[in-house]
């Protein structure tokens, strides 16, 4: 690994986050200081790409002062083994052919690029194109990464994969890849998320995975990651930790991005083919940042293409109940990487809030932190309400039910479209690509409750059953841990008669 970079170059000005109540003053936030809409990079020509060469294929471990390996020593050997295996695989024609074959014949790639003409009328009349990751097998972009990592797990001779999941999409994708490749699969999922995504819990179980609800902390994605890391430390010989986003310790951020780069490559070729030119903007939602970095990567070196990442604004960033990590966080270390982080004055991680389980994470991948600091990508918050409006709009104008995560990108694109077309004679000259990272089947219950289509109590009852079953597994897990059994999950499996 390279030597440690100097200490934080500039701490985020948004100390205001700490109170959870105030936005940074105009002109002090990263977006205001470096965002394309405020002039510093308006024409793109003087953008950072021009100064520093290519942004593509950044290898880690560091992205500027972010990234690295803030991890227990027990796991460093496994990270080294993974890095070595990945570095060999990514230049191995056999491995690349395997990935290409699975992408084409299993996931259904290339995913479509669909023009959303009726939706576009609400975005200032800009032309809007949807990169249809929702059409992938298992319903989201997550499959790209899990197939790659599951193949690496096999190369390392590991027989078991563990994963964390928020929305359940990564858990479903992991369970799918494990079934396909004959690996044992254990998924850690916050108990709160098990409730929000009861259908996906069942889906993982159907695919043969063991789902362990995590009842520590905020019972969401970050706590699921903690529990998966604890499992990994105890079972690292047999187990690969199939991390689901472009975050965590090196080599995860660069490796997860590598497996998602296909999104940006396809999107760039498709937009050139369909419109004859590059888009003006590319929009994606940001949880840990994997779908976003995947599509951004295709355009990082095209200075004329503005890149926008939309974080979960929850109830509104001014309320303190949000997951707008880059907008209001400050640098720190969590889950193995230095990056922006929602934390209090003591460095304790602050609980995030979002209607979308997949964005409900107080951290963000280190490459995004870097791209934010240098101004190559603008990051903005989208509230629950804005996302749900965009969700409904896409359903009704295009006949596509998006994942609520992806609805944040849709809502952001509406704003970007309106801004970019504001003083244009022909708004249709503006082209925006949105990464539609997933489909909304898993979110039907949440959306139905939001729009009062079913009464919330019925919805709660429907998921109570799943939570009870999940709690049974949790009890098993706790007793397994207490008895010192190395594999919590093996114990849980045994008790479940698997």
């Amino acid at each position, binding site marked *: 690994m390279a030597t440690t970079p100097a200490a934080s170059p500039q701490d985020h000005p948004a100390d205001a986050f700490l109170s959870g109540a105030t936005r940074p003053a105009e002109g002090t936030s990263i977006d205001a200081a470096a965002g394309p809409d405020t002039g510093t990079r308006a024409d793109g020509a003087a953008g950072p790409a021009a100064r520093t060469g290519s942004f593509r294929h950044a290898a880690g471990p560091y992205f500027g002062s972010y990234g690295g390996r803030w991890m227990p020593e*027990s796991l*460093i050997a496994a990270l080294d083994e993974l890095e070595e295996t990945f570095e060999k695989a990514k230049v191995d024609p056999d491995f690349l052919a395997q990935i290409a074959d699975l992408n084409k014949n299993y996931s259904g790639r290339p995913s479509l690029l669909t023009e959303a003409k009726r939706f576009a009328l609400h975005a200032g009349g800009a032309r809007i194109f949807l990169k249809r990751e929702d059409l992938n097998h298992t319903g989201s972009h997550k499959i790209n990464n899990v197939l790659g990592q599951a193949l690496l797990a096999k190369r390392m001779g590991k027989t078991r994969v563990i994963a964390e999941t928020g929305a359940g999409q990564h858990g479903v994708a992991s369970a799918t890849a494990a079934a396909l490749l004959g690996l044992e699969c254990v998924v850690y999922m916050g108990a709160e998320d098990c409730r929000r995504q009861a259908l996906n819990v069942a889906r993982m179980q159907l695919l043969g995975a063991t789902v362990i609800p995590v009842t520590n902390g905020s019972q969401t994605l970050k706590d699921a990651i903690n529990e998966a890391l604890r499992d990994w*430390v105890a079972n690292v010989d047999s187990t690969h930790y199939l991390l689901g986003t472009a975050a965590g310790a090196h080599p995860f951020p660069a490796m997860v991005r590598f497996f998602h780069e296909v999104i940006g490559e396809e999107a760039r070729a498709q937009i050139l083919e369909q419109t004859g030119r590059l888009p003006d903007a590319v929009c994606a939602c940001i949880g840990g940042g994997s779908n976003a970095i995947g599509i951004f990567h295709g355009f990082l070196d095209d200075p004329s293409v503005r890149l926008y990442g939309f974080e979960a604004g929850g109830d509104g960033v001014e309320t303190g109940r949000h997951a707008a990590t880059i907008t209001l966080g400050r640098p720190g270390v969590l889950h193995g990487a230095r990056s922006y982080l929602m934390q209090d004055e*003591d460095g*304790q991680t602050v609980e995030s809030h979002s209607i979308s389980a997949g964005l409900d994470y107080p951290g963000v991948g280190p490459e995004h932190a870097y791209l934010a600091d240098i101004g190559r990508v603008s990051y903005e918050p989208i509230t629950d309400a804005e996302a749900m409006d965009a969700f409904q709009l896409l359903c009704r104008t295009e006949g596509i039910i998006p994942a609520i995560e992806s609805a944040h990108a849709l809502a952001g694109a509406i704003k970007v479209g309106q801004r970019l077309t504001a003083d244009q004679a022909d708004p249709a000259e503006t082209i925006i690509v949105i990464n539609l990272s997933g489909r909304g089947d898993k979110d039907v219950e949440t959306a139905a409750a939001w729009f009062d289509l079913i009464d919330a109590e019925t919805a709660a009852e429907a998921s109570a059953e799943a939570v009870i079953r999940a709690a049974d597994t949790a009890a098993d897990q706790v007793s397994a841990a*207490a008895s*010192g059994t190395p594999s919590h999950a093996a114990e849980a499996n045994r008790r479940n008669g698997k």
Partner: protein
Amino acid sequence: MTVDPNVSGSTAETPGTESSSPETPGAPSKSAAAIDRARAQGRAALICYIPAGYPDVQTTIDAGIALARNGADLIEIGIPYSDPVMDGSVIQAATTEAIANGFRVSSIFDIVAGITAATDAAVLVMTYWNPVLRLGVDEFSRRLAAAGGAGLITPDLIPEEASQWLEASQKYGLDRVFLVAPSSTPERLARTVEASRGFVYAVSIMGVTGTRTAVSSTAEQLVADTRAAGAARVCVGLGVSNADQVREIAGYADGVIVGTALVAALRDGGVPALADLTTDLSSGLLPAGTEAH
């Protein structure tokens, strides 16, 4: 394996850095001195962990003093953290409660000062790295040294990421206790030993904190390998919970670290129960003249 503690140049009179690192200017290592005092009595050192602020700051000070008076040579005070990935359920429950009770990181300095004012034990702080980063590595180190603290045990910091800490610990004469694990390669052992000051923390098993019924045999090999990599003092922790296990480890290590069992005692019987268990654990330390020394 018998290792002469003085071959590396560190002596009981001038305890210092691990063998292969340059002598640290400023104060001698408090942890090394405490281990060497035990060694002079012909036994391994007992190192006891409790979390700060569990259930409150005053109890932690009282508990720390009780540990020292009942046989602990070194005391580890853990900073409760929101995302303790190396901790099992007992310590997690305690630190979660401490945070819920309003624990603030700055109170760690009052706790350390309270214990060092009343006892001779070396007092280390065990902390995940983000709370230190948040306060500022230099500022944290300055205040820890001022409180009489010995140094930091850092479960999620590896030497490669520790440049700020190497600098600050040097400046304030603090011990750097990095961890080595059964999975550490010889190269990593060498690097970690070189970066360490005071002692090296050998993780007995691949896993998180919690009591285990048996001490894994990998621990003894790891201690031997860590010594071979140049460490003058190697202490073993994770899963140690009774006097028999203490006795077994004291046969080959320079110190034995106990955490979860003490936290459970504090939880169930308060400071008196903690004191009783500490007395019992210390009975497992080797008497003078047995095979390890």
